[in-house]
């Protein structure tokens, strides 16, 4: 499969392949919010809970989604979160299923109950698939490639829990449409992990492998789906495609075959501010402060380099769909005559620094903007890097003069939120923010039109 645009910068702090398993902390913090949905607690303050017991629920059309308890302990309710104390590490499996003897309804219900369902992404909703929906996906994509710097790498997780992932894959036909296929997206590299997958899955006619270049944002579900639609000719334009990542497949296997609701996440802890970039397998609810560097000069961010958000490590905890935290030094020193230096310690999208010649990584990445804000000089870098094949510089020009309708016509809504344009812009324009606000305005406008109709 091919993707257009894209970029994968070289930055120190790539998490190593080692997966550490730190002991379970004494307190776990569960936020009563996930993917924008609010959950209401179903346990009482001070109640003791078992492993896997439903802590909180929310109703969506079709069923209830649950947050299962990652450990046994005592639940304390707080504002918008739930704290588990007196943790007991023992794990007692719940009901297990066999792929041959489970109905679709049971599968969906078990996944919703086990906290796994929101890890699925559907092209129909551009988010979590609807539970009650009758239309099944034609294709489920298992994405092994995570190209965004500092995110948990698919292959690391594959190596760690391959048997559980295979278990999970065997349940997927229950969700697929008849004769639907599973497309496994991976890099073309013939490394041991890929070989292992090929040989173990050789017997399954409904599983195909699709190599993709190792370039951000190959893992973006919308980019994947578009690329897939281009490379599978028989695919109808409106056929539904679901995308899951390796951890979701593992969670399906754990939840259905082993009776373990979602209780653990493999997260990457990396970035230039991290002393030992590595992976960690932690219980959900583990406070970020237990692995974050304690320094006010280092910013903690949840997510990868391009889409990650600043968080307060003292407050935050690993939640059900987190897979990466990275640490970025807060910019402090202003370099003398910075733009005149050859730049052996920097590397940019354009080969403008000497670091490109030596293959050096961008060792000066901090929270600095790294330049002054300027009007758009239409250098065209954003158009070159855009994976959605839209023209951010043109959209910017329209939005600069408040021409929302023109921006809409010029593909504003095709933007996949990869944030690459904002990353490469030499004029340091906050394109992503501008586009996000414009789309919000567009939605409001449409809702208004709907209401007055």
């Amino acid at each position, binding site marked *: 499969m091919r993707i257009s645009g894209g970029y994968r910068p070289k*930055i120190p702090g790539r998490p190593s392949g080692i997966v550490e398993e730190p002991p379970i902390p004494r307190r776990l913090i569960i936020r009563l919010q996930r993917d924008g949905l609010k959950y209401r607690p179903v346990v009482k303050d001070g109640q003791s809970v078992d492993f896997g017991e439903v802590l909180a629920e929310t109703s969506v059309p079709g069923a209830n989604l649950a947050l299962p308890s990652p450990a046994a302990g005592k639940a304390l309710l707080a504002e918008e979160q739930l704290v588990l104390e007196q943790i007991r590490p023992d794990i007692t499996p719940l009901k297990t299923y066999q792929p041959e003897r489970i109905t679709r309804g049971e599968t969906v219900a078990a996944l919703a109950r086990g906290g796994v369902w929101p890890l699925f992404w559907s092209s129909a909703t551009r988010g979590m698939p609807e539970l009650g929906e009758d239309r099944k996906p034609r294709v489920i994509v298992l994405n092994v490639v995570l190209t965004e710097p500092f995110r948990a790498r698919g292959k690391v997780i594959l190596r760690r829990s391959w048997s559980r992932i295979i278990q999970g894959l065997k349940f997927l036909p229950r969700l697929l449409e008849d004769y639907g296929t599973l497309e496994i997206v991976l890099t073309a590299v013939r490394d041991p992990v890929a070989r292992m997958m090929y040989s173990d899955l050789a017997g399954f006619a409904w599983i195909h492998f699709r190599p993709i270049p190792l370039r951000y944002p190959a893992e973006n579900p919308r980019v994947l789906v578009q690329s897939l639609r281009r490379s599978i000719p028989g695919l109808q334009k409106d056929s539904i495609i679901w995308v899951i990542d390796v951890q979701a497949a593992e969670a399906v296997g754990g939840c259905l075959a082993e009776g373990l609701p979602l209780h653990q996440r493999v997260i990457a802890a990396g970035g230039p501010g991290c002393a030992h970039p590595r992976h960690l397998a932690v219980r959900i609810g583990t406070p970020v402060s237990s692995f974050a560097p304690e320094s006010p000069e280092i*910013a903690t*961010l949840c997510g990868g*380099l391009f*889409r990650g*958000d*600043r968080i307060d490590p003292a407050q935050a905890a690993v939640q059900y769909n987190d897979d990466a935290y990275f640490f*970025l030094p*807060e*910019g402090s020193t*202003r*370099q*003398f*005559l*910075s*733009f005149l230096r050859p*730049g052996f310690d920097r590397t*940019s*999208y*354009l*080969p*403008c*620094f000497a670091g490109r010649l030596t293959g050096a990584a*961008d060792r*000066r*990445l901090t*929270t*600095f*903007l*790294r*330049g*002054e804000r*300027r*009007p*758009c*000089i*239409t*250098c*065209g870098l954003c*158009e*070159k890097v855009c994976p959605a*094949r839209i*023209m951010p510089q*043109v959209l910017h*020009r329209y939005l600069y003069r408040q021409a929302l309708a023109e921006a809409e*016509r*010029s*593909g504003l*809504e*095709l933007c996949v939120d990869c*944030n690459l344009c904002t*990353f*490469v*812009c*030499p*004029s*340091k324009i*906050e394109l*992503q*923010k501008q586009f996000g606000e414009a789309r919000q305005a567009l939605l409001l406008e449409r809702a208004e039109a709907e209401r007055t109709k």
Partner: protein
Amino acid sequence: MKGLKGILENLRPAFEEGGRLARLKPIFQALDHFLFAAAEKTPSSPFGRDPLDVKRYMSLVILALLPSFAAAVYFFGWRVLLMLLVSYAAGGLVEVLFAIIRKEEINEGFLVTGFIFPLILPPGIPLWLVAIGVSFGVLIGKEIFGGTGRNLFNPALVGRVFLAIGYPAALTSTWMQPLAGPWGRLLAPFGFGVPDALTSATPLGLAKSGVLTGAFELFVGRTAGSAGETSALAILLGGVFLILVGVASWRTVLALLASFVGLTAILHGLLPATVPPVMFHLLSGGLLFGAFFMATDPVSGPVTRGGKWAFGLLIGAATIFIRSFSGYVEGVMFAILLGNIFAPLIDEIVIRLKTRRYANER
């Protein structure tokens, strides 16, 4: 460096809001940001950014212009350096004034305009004309439209055309004959070589009367012409560098040169008497300089990638038509300005074509 930083920090309060010199803030800011990298932090995702900024972008253009500048000094003497200083002083004054009036930062774009301008002038031109030309170019070509990034035309070319039309005599009689010999004109101030000889014949002018300059002379640049435009060798050195670092669009350059070479070959085949051969046209006048350094100006060129092809094709074709069938011997500057005029239209067409495809891509 610590001391320098200390001085700047001591001065800073005076230029901040409410300070005694708050009006002159753009000057302080420009100096501050020139010496030390800016300290602003990323307000939104992505929180780490690419190291490339406009300062670096523009300084690479100036770096690429250095070979042409060196060749100009070599062939036409230290006068060119003087022209550069005058251009920076006069144009910089306009830029700073407008930054103060608009309360915006001083833009790096001017450093490129001010550097290019003396290089596209006849080396013997009176210095006051340099000052007038660059001021006009920056004022009318750029500031009126809102400054760097919003200008329709290449400011250096606007200034150049203003001089060509307003002071035709001064511009057609101030060409200089470069000196032969290993030192060129470098030692002229110390009494070596001959006094500056003004002439009115550039290779393109001579060609009209049937005299063709040799290809080697043209390639090295030992001919009369605009200061930085004569040496194809120096231009190629800088131009290829600019394309390799990705600052100049290879699409524009390739399209421009391809259409120019193709059309010239056809016209030379049809009318060998009026149109000299391809090699001569390619190396003479300001064609290469314009192709690598002025048509590739991102601001006044088309915004879209597809548009760059059309833009280059148009300029290449217009250049040879003006050179062959008009009263002017040189056509590049008019052709590029013509391209600037058409750029928004080209963009509009490309955007329409591209957005039509979007309907299928939801």
